């Protein structure tokens, strides 16, 4: 029987931790699975690296951004996206659980449903994404001539990027409570949008895109804003943006998931 007299946040954290540890134990039982998925995770980074190298062989800069700065953009995005696979990959199953009525079982257990769903799986591609994403970001960092003094700001940007990414994917997967389907189309589209547009300078896009990516679905604060601040494309006061965006994203994710659970009526209705 779970001890529900402890602080709710600590209790939820404990459940999350035990669930993730159980998933890690399961991973060790399937080594082939691990290596296939980790290699798949590296694929995007390798090809993005190749894309930028080919592109910058033809042009000196893109909207004022140079090769190593663009590597940092891609690297930070991959670390954030890969972290969601490691920390909350189960959230992608929300649509399937809703369709099959498998949220029922989780509602009856003494732990937040979102925590149970999020920790129900680890995306092993995340290991490859995070590892190679860090390599890409660090290579870009060194190549851009940035020193150790900027490391604290970089770490803050990285932490906020992971929180924002996890929260936004959770929020968009929760849309499946209303728009039924096994695929989390909205979350997938956001990732697709990020990989297509957020690996490029925002100056390339119309003002509407800048507004949406900063103030509606704040994906710009995952990688563009922190890297732009670190490389001097934006002023240092922009650094308050990522923590604010992280807080707003977490509140939105929790709120939307709760609303989704309220409208949940199991399967067959």
């Amino acid at each position, binding site marked *: 029987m779970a001890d529900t007299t402890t602080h709710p946040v600590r209790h939820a954290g404990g459940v999350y931790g035990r669930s993730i540890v159980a998933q890690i134990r399961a991973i060790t039982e*399937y080594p*082939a*699975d691990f290596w*296939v*998925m980790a*290699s*798949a*995770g590296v*694929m*995007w980074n390798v*090809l993005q690296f*190749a*894309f930028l190298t*080919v*592109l910058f*062989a*033809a*042009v000196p800069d*893109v*909207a004022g951004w140079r090769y190593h700065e663009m590597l940092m953009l891609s690297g930070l995005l991959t670390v954030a996206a890969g972290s969601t*696979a490691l920390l909350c*990959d189960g959230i*992608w199953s929300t649509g399937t659980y809703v369709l099959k009525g498998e949220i029922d079982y989780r509602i009856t257990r003494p732990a937040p449903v979102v925590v149970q769903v999020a920790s129900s*799986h680890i*995306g*092993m*591609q995340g290991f490859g994404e995070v590892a190679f994403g860090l390599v890409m970001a660090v290579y870009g960092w060194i190549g851009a001539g940035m020193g150790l003094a900027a490391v604290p700001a970089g770490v803050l940007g990285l932490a906020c990027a992971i929180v924002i990414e996890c929260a936004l994917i959770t929020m968009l997967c929760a849309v499946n409570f209303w*728009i*039924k*389907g*096994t*695929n989390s*189309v*909205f979350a997938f*589209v956001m990732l*697709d*949008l990020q990989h*297509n*547009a957020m690996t*490029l300078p925002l100056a*390339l*896009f*119309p003002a509407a895109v800048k507004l949406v990516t900063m103030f509606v679905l704040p994906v710009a604060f995952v990688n563009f804003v922190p890297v732009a601040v670190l490389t001097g494309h934006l002023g240092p006061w922009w650094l308050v943006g990522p923590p604010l965006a992280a807080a707003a994203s977490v509140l939105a994710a929790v709120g939307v998931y709760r609303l989704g659970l309220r409208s949940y009526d199991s399967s067959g209705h």
Partner: protein
Amino acid sequence: MASVDVALATISFKRKIAYKSTWIFSVVFGGWSLLAGLAVWNHLIGDGEMGGYDWQAMKAYLIIGFLTSTLAWAGSDWEMANRILDGLVAVDLTKPVDFQRARAGEYIGGMLASVPAALIGTAAAVVLFRPAGPVSPLAAALTAVSLLLIFPLAFGISYLSILTCFVTQRYLGIQWARDTMLAFFSGMMVPLALMPGWLQGVAWSLPFVHFTTTPASIYLGRVGTAGALGLLAAQAAWAVGLWVLGRLIWSQLVKKVTVHGG
């Protein structure tokens, strides 16, 4: 074509359009990649040209890529993958229907469900962005043949990717890797003409190149009629080759089937 193939394709078609909102949103948002590509290449090309593409030609190139990728990934790869991941493949083995052929029927049915929306999206893009037209009526006809060959080609690639589910517990990462390889080696991210020679060699030795570079090269007249026919032959050969390869890999991986630890 047997009636069972048509029946499976029809069921898949109906299943795809059953979740209308999900289907519509997935098609609408698919246009984001096209818009991002247009923004980037408009900035880079300006009034000049890159890799032999001026702005008009690049617009046609990107719109063809949008059309082919919208068609290609509208199939039922998730349904195929889940049959293996959930263990339903064990039930399929008892049925008097060839697994690969049945999945092909379902996949093509799913692709057909996306055709109207893909065509409307492409027509809208043509009206909005006014790309270069086909270099000749024959080139337009051969481009259409290339687009038709994408149906079996997309199935072949998707089938190989879902077979990995015999040794993995999840399909998402595999799908992501496959989509990335397609985006890069098809020439959607950056035209092959800008790649170094050795990388072009790698791209031309893979099937992905036939999703964008082949139809766009024929459409824009970057290859002559003989070259176009050669590319179509290569595309058809890949479709057949992937079918055979899928059968060979299936015969090995199906030995790994374990259901609920049994």
